[in-house]
């Protein structure tokens, strides 16, 4: 449960720049995320969204500027890391990896706190609770690799939630899912966010569905192009500049993608 007051910034990023090798991937980014907000992080491919999440997680060091997460510098998260749930960018998991859905959720219990001991009963129960919360308890014993894309994402969401985090960082969790499943995933996420009082930063390419759920959108393409309420961002010339095309084209692209999936 959240431990600080509701107006405190869960994420505070000030003039952040990040290099990967010689390339400047993020430049002079500043923003804040308040407790209980659901923020959509958008931008074209290669625009630095994943790098930003990894910097917030302390996996990459900023080359200049500062990122503070849950009151701690991102490079020294320490015990605050326990309070962050994360779904990495949608990847193809080994379909034959011998873990059940429940085993996958239990891997989320592993942290420096659980080193050199077995998982406790309450940690195992938390795995079941979170499977229930995401509507996947009936899948608990099924091999993870046998699940559909949507089911796998629900299980990964349960894994991200199993340590009862205050902050969720989700990197394109709904990519590759068909639009109806994407919609359901976002609805469920919104529900969980409200009932657990979570702060959520979610990366997505699906501007239209994200706009319907997020409190604010941040658009980055190396630099911060625009941030604000969804409608304001979607119709801003800055968004068109970031994607190098007009909103109409973005909308049409999304619609045609949806048509082709329904096919």
């Amino acid at each position, binding site marked *: 449960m959240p431990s600080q007051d509701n107006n405190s910034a869960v994420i505070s990023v000030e003039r952040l720049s990040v290099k990967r090798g010689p390339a400047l991937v993020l430049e002079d980014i500043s923003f804040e995320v308040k407790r209980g907000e659901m923020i959509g992080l958008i931008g074209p491919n290669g625009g630095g969204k994943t790098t930003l999440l990894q910097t917030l997680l302390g996996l990459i060091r900023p080359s200049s500027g500062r990122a503070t997460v849950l009151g701690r510098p991102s490079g020294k998260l320490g015990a605050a*890391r*326990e309070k*962050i749930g994360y779904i*990495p960018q949608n990847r193809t998991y080994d379909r034959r990896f011998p*873990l*059940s859905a429940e*085993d996958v959720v239990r891997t*989320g219990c*592993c942290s420096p706190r659980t080193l050199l001991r077995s998982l406790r009963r309450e940690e195992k129960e938390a795995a079941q609770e979170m499977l229930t919360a995401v509507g996947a308890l009936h899948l608990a014993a099924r091999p993870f690799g046998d699940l559909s894309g949507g089911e796998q994402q629900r299980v990964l969401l349960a894994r991200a939630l199993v340590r009862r985090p205050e902050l969720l960082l989700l990197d394109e969790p709904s990519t590759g899912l068909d639009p109806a499943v994407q919609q359901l995933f976002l609805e469920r996420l919104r529900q969980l966010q409200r009932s657990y009082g979570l702060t959520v930063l979610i990366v997505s390419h699906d501007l239209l569905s994200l706009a319907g759920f997020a409190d604010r959108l941040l658009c980055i393409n190396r630099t911060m192009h625009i941030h604000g309420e969804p409608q304001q961002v979607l119709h801003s010339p800055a968004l068109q500049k970031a994607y190098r095309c007009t909103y109409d084209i973005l909308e049409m692209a999304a619609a045609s993608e949806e048509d082709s999936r329904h096919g």
Partner: protein
Amino acid sequence: MAEMFSYAFMRHALLAAVLTGALCSAVAFFVVLKRLSFLGVGISHTALAGIALGLVTGLDPFWCGSAFAVATALATGHISRRGQLYEDTVIGIFFAAGMALGVAMLSSLKGYYPEIFSLLFGNILSVSPADLRLLAAVAAPVLLFIALFFKELLAISFDEEAALASGLPVKPLYYGLLAAMALTVMISVKLVGIVLASALLVIPAAAGYRFSKNYRGMFLLSLATGIGGSAGGLILSYYLDLPSGAAIVLFMALLFAASLLCRPRSR
């Protein structure tokens, strides 16, 4: 069978086979899940350079080989993690360079060295009580490492990025696993030799992987195949008068082939 085990050397050999089989299958579980099979081949072949160094300088060949194997495993892991070269490229280079160095050093030896043949193809029948103590001394820390960090190694093998984000010590555990692999390879060299050692780091877990969609089942089947394969191969070698290393690997391969026939994974 009773006659076979009336010989002390056969009892020692069986004990060595069971212990090595158990050790190898526990490590093989993560070798297969983390897709490190080729690294096992690389480590065992580069160990030749260390063993040759021992023979040339008069140092203990086992410990020289172990030091070389651990160094190779850690260097391969370090270089491939930096992302400048693919892991299999690094292994390919170390593999060939280690073998070449080993052959070059061995060529400087004068006279006949029967241990070279044993190192290449194994000679479990020559295992002494001192060898068994050495085997146990190496196996204990490796098995302890696997037992203590089993759930973390499993989490890392499944999703390394999520494990890193959770604050798990991914790098030290990965390097620990590589060192455990290297020591296990060196133990296997005594059993089946450099050329075949890497097979023991793959076949037991591969058979378990075929049969079980659950890691607990896979681990137990891996253990059963490792121990049963090593002991069964040894017994087979006695009755068919075959080299023990070759018999052990062939018997394990047969168990794996049987797993293919019995119950293919429905994927």
